[in-house]
């Protein structure tokens, strides 16, 4: 299959390209940029006039719900959603049922994803068995099975001795640890940012300091043990500051923020809107501003969807009883674009935050359109308005606080290995 993508505006942050150029694809690879290789005859031409041609997006966190929660979502439904969102590579956290702490489970997941051939799936293995924070997993075996890093998902390790050893062990082999920093005790039973809104609504709060305290310990341990650590889903101004300082001091730390947290605050809980029940909780306007600024100045490396499909039964409950999380694969692009627009930064920057940057954190070959690279491509219209409507979302999870809103930016084509996996 040979494809000629013509008249599009090419944005490839890794190669610092931001110009109108044609792209030529053959045998699953990029074979020409700007000019066709010799004797190239396309079987298909995609007219990308007025469209952006970018590397397929890389999402640092998408829950696919397999194995164990197929009533919430399946690999098939979520990978179709990812393709519709222009995503060609994604990392999935280990909090499935059973937990991804056995090589066999990881192999099975990789195998099933490969059969579907819609998105490259990169599992994050559990850092500790059952995510219990007690015993280390077989990280080498898990890596061989296909894990690209190790994570505790939303479960904190309360025993700092275990945390320290996990870091040392991972550092032995150069593995990256992915952690969402939150002090277990301060966050316990909390469902909202500890501030005026939670106080008015009578919801148990999680103080911003819960994140700061945990980040401070994690960074200290990472520094001492010389471990690569990725901080997932920053939510506070304090967290952003700590990461900024640590980066200056040479700690090997990267960080991401969820697309939800770039735009929403605890005010969006409104009258107990369970769709705004997220982990970490939506925080204050000041925190959100710091997150957006942190993204802009490079303190925060990437935006992720933090895709968490939840079934209606688990959301149709009073706020604190509802399961946390938002569906997000199909909203990653428009929300990243909105971040760029709202913060007066470029489309190029927004694309970097969902392509080259997350690919570099995962240390995977993806998120760029170099010659001879895999032809994983997203082609989108940055100006197309669309209304977020549950019936239009491909994900089995319809749970998003953005329902009913109109956003700009919609994917028109997604290619994986030069095959069209989605067409609007």
């Amino acid at each position, binding site marked *: 299959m040979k494809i000629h993508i013509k008249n599009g505006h090419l944005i490839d942050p890794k190669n610092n390209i931001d110009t109108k150029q044609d792209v030529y694809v053959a045998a699953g690879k990029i074979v020409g940029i700007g000019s066709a290789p010799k004797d190239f005859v396309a079987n298909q031409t995609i007219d990308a006039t007025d469209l952006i041609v970018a590397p397929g997006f890389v999402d640092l966190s998408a829950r696919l719900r397999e194995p164990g929660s197929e009533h919430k979502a399946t690999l098939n439904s979520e990978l179709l959603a990812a393709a519709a969102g222009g995503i060609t590579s994604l990392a999935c956290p280990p909090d499935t049922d059973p937990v991804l702490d056995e090589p066999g489970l990881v192999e099975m997941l990789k195998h099933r994803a490969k059969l579907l051939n819609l998105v490259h799936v990169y599992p994050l293995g559990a850092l500790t068995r059952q995510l219990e924070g007690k015993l280390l997993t077989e990280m080498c075996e898990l890596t061989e099975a296909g894990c690209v890093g190790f994570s505790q998902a939303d479960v904190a390790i309360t025993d700092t001795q275990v945390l320290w050893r996990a870091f040392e062990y991972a550092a032995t082999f150069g593995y990256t640890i992915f952690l969402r920093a939150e002090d277990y005790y301060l966050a316990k039973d909390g469902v909202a940012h500890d501030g005026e809104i939670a*106080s008015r609504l*009578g*919801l148990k709060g999680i*103080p911003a300091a819960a994140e700061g305290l945990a980040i401070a310990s994690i960074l200290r341990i990472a520094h001492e043990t010389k471990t690569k650590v990725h901080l997932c889903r920053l939510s506070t101004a304090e967290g952003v500051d700590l990461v900024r300082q640590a980066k200056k001091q040479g700690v090997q730390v990267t960080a991401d923020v969820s697309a939800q947290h770039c735009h929403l605050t605890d005010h969006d809980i409104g*009258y107990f809107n369970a769709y705004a029940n997220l982990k970490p909780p939506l925080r204050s306007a000041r925190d959100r501003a710091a997150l957006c600024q942190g993204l802009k100045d490079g303190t925060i490396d990437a935006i992720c969807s933090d895709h968490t499909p939840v079934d209606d039964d688990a959301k149709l409950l*009073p*706020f*604190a009883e509802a399961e946390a999380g938002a569906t997000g694969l199909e909203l990653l692009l428009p929300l990243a674009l909105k971040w760029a627009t709202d913060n007066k930064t470029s489309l190029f920057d927004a694309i970097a935050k969902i392509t080259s940057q997350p690919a570099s954190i995962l240390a995977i070959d993806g998120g760029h359109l170099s010659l001879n690279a895999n032809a994983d491509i997203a082609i989108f219209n940055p100006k197309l308005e669309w209304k977020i409507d549950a019936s239009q979302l491909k994900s089995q999870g319809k749970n998003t606080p953005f329902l009913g809103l109109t956003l700009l930016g919609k994917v028109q084509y997604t290619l994986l290995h030069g095959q069209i996996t989605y067409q609007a």
Partner: protein
Amino acid sequence: MLNPQLDADGKLKHLLTIEGLPKKILTQILDTAETFVGVAERDIKKVPLLRGKTVCNIFFENSTRTRTTFEIAAKRLSADVINLNVNTSSQSKGETILDTVDNLIAMHADMFVVRHGQSGAVHFIAQHVPDNISVINAGDGRHAHPTQGLLDVFTVRRYKPDMHNLRVALVGDVLHSRVARSEIHALTTLGVPEVRVIAPKTLLPAGVEKLGVQVFHDMKAGLKDADVVMMLRLQNERMSGALLPSAQEYFKTFGLTQEKLSYAKPDAIVMHPGPMNRGVEIDSSVADGSQSVILPQVTYGIAVRMAVMAILGGGA
């Protein structure tokens, strides 16, 4: 965002929280309650305003006093009353809140009085009932207990009619108290210029001053020249642990005694939403003393609940 408590004409549709209700509606409820105070003193303690209507008390959390006063209020309005203690029946069998509510809707109830342990649960139910059903919040988690807030300001207004010239002090566990939140909103909406909260820092929610109150951690300073002292209940399980070291120390520092009450104005009134912990948050001599209006609160509670039901039922 539209206020879910009001209909398109700005009339009360549900009573879920005092926050966000216009002063006009609060005053309407209080004025209507005045007309019902006399009903209880008659030989025939009934008015026919809700005749033929069915009021359903749905209590997902235990309560005797609140449920009873709602029941009496509904019966005095001539409504039929169904009481449902859900925590002892369906929920333990795995039924969801919406299943329970749907069943009651199918039984053609006209009004739901709901208590639930989760903040926001009553809003949630109000969002899912058909248009012809009104929902009254009888207490949800830490969020709101609007009829209690209303009966408290009704009591204040009876004893201290000049609301624009009052200093009110709330004492105790504001953090976990839906009553405190409703009292604060009711007082500030009705124009009380100075509302204070007095509590240790462990029992105050984050940013409480944004609710329009002044914060004190000392009874002497906080009660100084107060016209009204509203005590809050301290739950047994919170008396000793990480929030407070002991009931004794709490009583010593924040319990209302005659001595501490003397810091307030000589004609200050003392209130408590009940049930009281004598010797923990309040001394018996104060609870039973001449400044206490704790029992009148209970009496007025019925009139206020009648007023709310009558207004929601379209009969007043």
